[in-house]
């Protein structure tokens, strides 16, 4: 029977690899794979490894992180994970199987132990891949010691042990449940034991370890030396020893040390394996539930829910009253705002904006808060760029949802441009509102920081109006690009959104590059149109702020015309879009 399961796993793997290799005959997969491989090559192999600043060179002096500090930090992280598994986790004993595996294997004449072995074998593929990937990253940090191979082996031991411990802990929790120890009691029991352990260790530290003297805090090296002394003494060293055994191969500075440290690590790993394999716990029921939840999560992610969590929807009040007559695109906005949630409703957003601006004006009026204003101003600009990028991401989700319902939407008595405008409106309104608020924040902060508030307020206001005029059409164009990409290259976009692996990564890179090119082409005419009124007004009134406003008005008009043309053009494409031939099945 084990042979059948190994066959299933190996055949599935071979077919998956074969399918991926086979589709390289299609140019789009081949090009995307080459670009993805080039990205990996340049990211992992061509970049100089990080070894700290060169001696005597510029920058911060390198810190010699002690082995014990590194080991103990990693051990504490590991302990945190294990603590979570034993104290906080409420998950029942469940092994992650796919829905097909549940359907076929759970009714097959297969023992639990064989199923556990199958699960472990399956998880090894993921662990091996992760170990290689992580080692490519960690081996770049020369101060960690070792090389790519020792790091890969170290990662494998660590990840395998954590995987086995998670399964073993879930089995143990199930057993405790059978003995009448429900999660609340378990938390109280294990939490109490943990509190005692921490209190005991603290008490011991207070009695036996001297508080750091001034010399111990003289610099990074001294601080590390002090803490190494604390960690090396019992009982902390005893408590951390099992974690250290697991982690030492990863931190081994050379091959000799690695081989020396391998024995204890494999011993702990083997003990975990025996623990899991000998536990005879009924995991079937919880595993079925887990596989269902995982399938739902995957379906939710594929349908555009980036959180991948399918929580039951709750009723939401309407953002505004939708009358039965009027422009149809507003109905799309109304529907999508309900989906977005009450935080984005006009009234709530206006209240939030008023509150934020009130605080900003209060800060601006008080010279003591200049530093705070400077921090807010500095943070608002990158946040503004990030929000601008969020528009296309939101749009990709909307378009994906639209594509799923296209056979219904196509029967609506609407022109294509109405549907396109309707779908674009919500991300456009949401991003514009956020950008306007951020612009207002920056304007207030700039007015307060650059001089007398009253004298710079006018200039800030003009700048605010100018930038504010540019935002809606720019956001509209930015959200229109993913829409256009989906309508013109549906199979490309679908594969890039849903796929995984090197080719999907390559397709995303191609999409990002194309997106930037199209955006630059769209912004170029607006920039040219802005130049003429800017120079004329500057020559006439010799006031920079007014000239900039004139340029912004001209640019926003050009951008608005471009947006209208794009919506019209996409509407035509939408009307001709044949979902039976163009959507991937």
């Amino acid at each position: 029977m084990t042979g059948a399961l190994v066959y299933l796993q190996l055949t599935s793997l071979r077919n998956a690899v074969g399918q991926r290799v086979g589709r390289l005959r299609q140019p789009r997969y081949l090009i995307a794979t080459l670009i993805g491989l080039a990205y990996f090559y340049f990211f992992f192999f061509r970049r100089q490894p990080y070894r700290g600043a060169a001696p005597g060179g510029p920058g911060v002096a390198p810190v010699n992180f002690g082995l014990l500090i590194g080991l103990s930090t990693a051990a504490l992280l590991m302990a945190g994970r294990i603590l979570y598994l034993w104290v906080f986790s409420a998950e029942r004993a469940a092994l992650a199987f796919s829905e097909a595996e549940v359907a076929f294997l759970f009714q097959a004449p297969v023992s639990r132990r064989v199923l556990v072995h199958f699960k472990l074998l399956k998880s090894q593929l993921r662990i091996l891949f992760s170990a290689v990937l992580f080692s490519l990253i960690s081996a770049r940090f020369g101060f960690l010691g070792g090389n790519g191979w020792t790091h890969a082996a170290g990662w494998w031991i660590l990840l395998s042990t954590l995987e086995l411990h998670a399964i073993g802990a879930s089995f143990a929790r199930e057993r405790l449940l059978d003995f009448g120890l429900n999660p609340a009691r378990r938390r109280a029991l294990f939490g109490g034991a943990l509190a005692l352990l921490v209190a005991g260790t603290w008490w011991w530290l207070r009695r036996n370890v001297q508080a750091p003297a001034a010399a111990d805090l003289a610099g990074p090296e001294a601080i590390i030396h002090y803490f190494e002394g604390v960690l090396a003494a019992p009982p902390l060293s005893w408590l951390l020893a099992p974690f250290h055994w697991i982690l030492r191969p990863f931190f081994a500075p050379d091959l000799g040390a690695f081989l020396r440290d391998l024995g204890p690590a494999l011993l702990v790993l083997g003990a975990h394996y025996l623990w899991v394999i000998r536990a005879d716990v009924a995991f079937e029921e919880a595993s079925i539930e887990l596989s269902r939840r995982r399938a739902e999560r995957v379906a939710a992610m594929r349908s555009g829910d980036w959180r991948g969590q399918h929580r039951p929807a709750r009723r939401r009040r309407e953002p505004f009253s939708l009358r039965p007559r009027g422009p149809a695109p507003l109905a799309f906005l109304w529907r999508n705002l309900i989906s977005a949630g009450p935080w984005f409703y006009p009234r709530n957003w206006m209240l939030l904006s008023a509150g934020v601006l009130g605080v900003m004006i209060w800060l601006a009026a008080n010279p003591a808060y200049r530093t705070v204003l400077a921090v807010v101003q500095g943070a608002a600009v990158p946040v503004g760029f990030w929000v601008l990028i969020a528009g296309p991401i939101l749009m990709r989700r909307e378009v994906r949802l639209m594509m799923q319902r296209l056979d219904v939407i196509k029967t609506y008595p609407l022109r294509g441009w109405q549907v396109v405008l309707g779908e674009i409106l919500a991300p456009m309104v949401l991003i514009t509102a956020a950008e306007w608020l951020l612009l207002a924040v920056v304007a207030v902060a700039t007015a307060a920081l650059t001089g007398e508030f009253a004298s710079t307020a006018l200039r800030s206001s003009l700048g605010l109006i100018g930038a504010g005029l540019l935002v809606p059409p720019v956001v509209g164009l930015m959200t229109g690009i993913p829409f256009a990409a989906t309508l013109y290259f549906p199979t490309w976009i679908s594969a890039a959104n849903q796929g995984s692996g090197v080719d999907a990564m390559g397709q995303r890179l191609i999409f990002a590059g194309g997106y930037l090119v199209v955006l630059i082409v769209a912004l170029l005419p607006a920039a040219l149109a802005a130049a003429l009124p800017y120079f004329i007004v500057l020559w006439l009134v010799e006031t920079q702020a007014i000239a900039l406003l004139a340029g912004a008005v001209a640019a926003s008009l050009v951008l608005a015309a471009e947006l209208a043309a794009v919506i019209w053009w996409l509407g035509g494409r939408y009307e001709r879009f044949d979902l039976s031939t163009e959507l991937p099945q």
Partner: protein
Amino acid sequence: MIEVHSLAKIYGEFTAVRDLSFTVQPGEVTGLVGPNGAGKTTTLRCCSGVIPPTRGTVRIRGIDLATDPVGAKRQLAFFPDEPRLFEYLTVRQHLGFIARLYGVADYEARAQPLLDELEMSDKQDLLPGELSRGMKQKLVIACGLLHTPGVIFFDEPLTGLDPAGIRRMKDTMRRLAREGAAIILSSHLLSLLEEVCTHVLILKQGEKIADGSLAEVRRRFSELPDASLEDAFFKATGDDHGPPVITPP
């Protein structure tokens, strides 16, 4: 009325629907049947404007779907086999949304009797996630009928319904036909078609094998006076013996 003339849908080298012509008069319910891959769903999608035909014309109550798609779509309703609803819109909000798309000014007055008939009056504030599959199907029907369409397409309408839901669906289809709607109903359930349809259109490999009233089709393809539509179907599609019987080893 639905008028289809020389409809064809071709995918590369594959012809899904070939030179299909038929008419469905107001008050008629035409059952669209055929083996898997016969072109039923493609025909329904072309006739409802979901996908464009490669050739041919479709007229919905006299309006050409290709030249005036918006005008034609105002006259029709398409019910896919799977109810697809908006996660965050309640029953009432779904109706409000559809009313805006179709410009139904008095939708509240129209919606109430519809919801009463579908026994959904007490569920107006529920979200799709709180509805059973049958209820979701009912909501889709309420949305589709809100603008009083004259032409209706059903694609496997009984999928997932319980016995009460099946009966209600059949009653709804009969009532709509009585009120003058032209209906096309695609289903593999030949017994359903016998119960509900006045006419039948049999497709095979994208081509029309037969169309006409139920009695005409039965008469044409079976010598027996009490032959069922099933007998006629297998005779018409050239599969007289029906599907093979599978016996356990």
